[in-house]
């Protein structure tokens, strides 16, 4: 019988330490190993997201703005959530987006996807994809600009499961 994927993900117990990121082994590999079978699912923490962002920026301050992240307020299913991110930029040599990074504060892996944007993308480029969200949470998008600056946008999503729990 097909499993209820989103529920399985939530019920999924402790994770074999080797499968998660280096970050979580450093931060709490032992703690994960002690979690009993049906307890909390593996997830990142806001601290881990902060670490991931710092790894990207090298400590440079991230300025809120110029990045518009659009996600549904309420996602019908955490398996597939539509994402659109637009960066305010003329895309000239002097002022362009190099990459856009999407971070989750709750998913098992903090970085969801990284987009590398070409100078030929056109003004105010918009990128589209579908992401997985393990639970209701804030999602953050950070744009790395050609001049070394970083800009961010964020939004919160409430993730629901189907009301009629039919197991697929």
């Amino acid at each position: 019988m097909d499993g209820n994927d989103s529920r399985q993900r939530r019920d999924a117990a402790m994770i074999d330490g080797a499968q998660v990121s280096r970050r979580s082994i450093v931060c709490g590999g032992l703690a994960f190993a002690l979690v009993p079978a049906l307890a909390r699912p593996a997830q990142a923490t806001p601290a881990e997201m902060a670490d991931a962002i710092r790894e990207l920026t090298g400590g440079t301050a991230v300025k809120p703005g110029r990045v518009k992240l659009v996600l549904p307020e309420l996602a019908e299913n955490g398996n597939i959530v539509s994402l659109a991110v637009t960066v305010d930029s003329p895309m000239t040599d002097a002022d362009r987006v190099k990459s856009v990074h999407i971070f989750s504060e709750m998913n098992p892996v903090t970085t969801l996807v990284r987009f590398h944007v070409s100078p030929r993308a056109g003004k105010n480029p918009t990128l589209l994809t579908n992401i997985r969200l393990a639970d209701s949470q804030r999602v953050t998008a950070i744009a790395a600009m050609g001049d070394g600056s970083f800009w961010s946008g964020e939004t919160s999503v409430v993730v629901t499961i189907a009301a009629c729990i039919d197991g697929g």
Partner: protein
Amino acid sequence: MPQPTRIVMPTSAKKGEVFQVKTIIQHEMESGFRRDNRGLAIPRHIITSFVVMYAGGEIFRADMFPGVAANPYFGFTTTAVETGEVVFTWTDDRGDVTTERRTITVA
């Protein structure tokens, strides 16, 4: 083995025009965090990289992680530079590669 894909983009454009490309590839994107009915971890199997080349350069690239939904979908824009091939390459964490080509005519 190459996976089925769907690519939606114009077949022609005016020089300098910015056009949108939408792509989907069939792939389960097994996150590695699920367990099967016996409680055993289902191994991760995801596409990790998607690269698009056109007119001598990379016009889009995505580094993918388990947080990308199954049957990965991407939409992006690029400028019509010249008539030529747009080459799409997806690579997964087992080294399997899917490549698709489309031609755009630029007047």
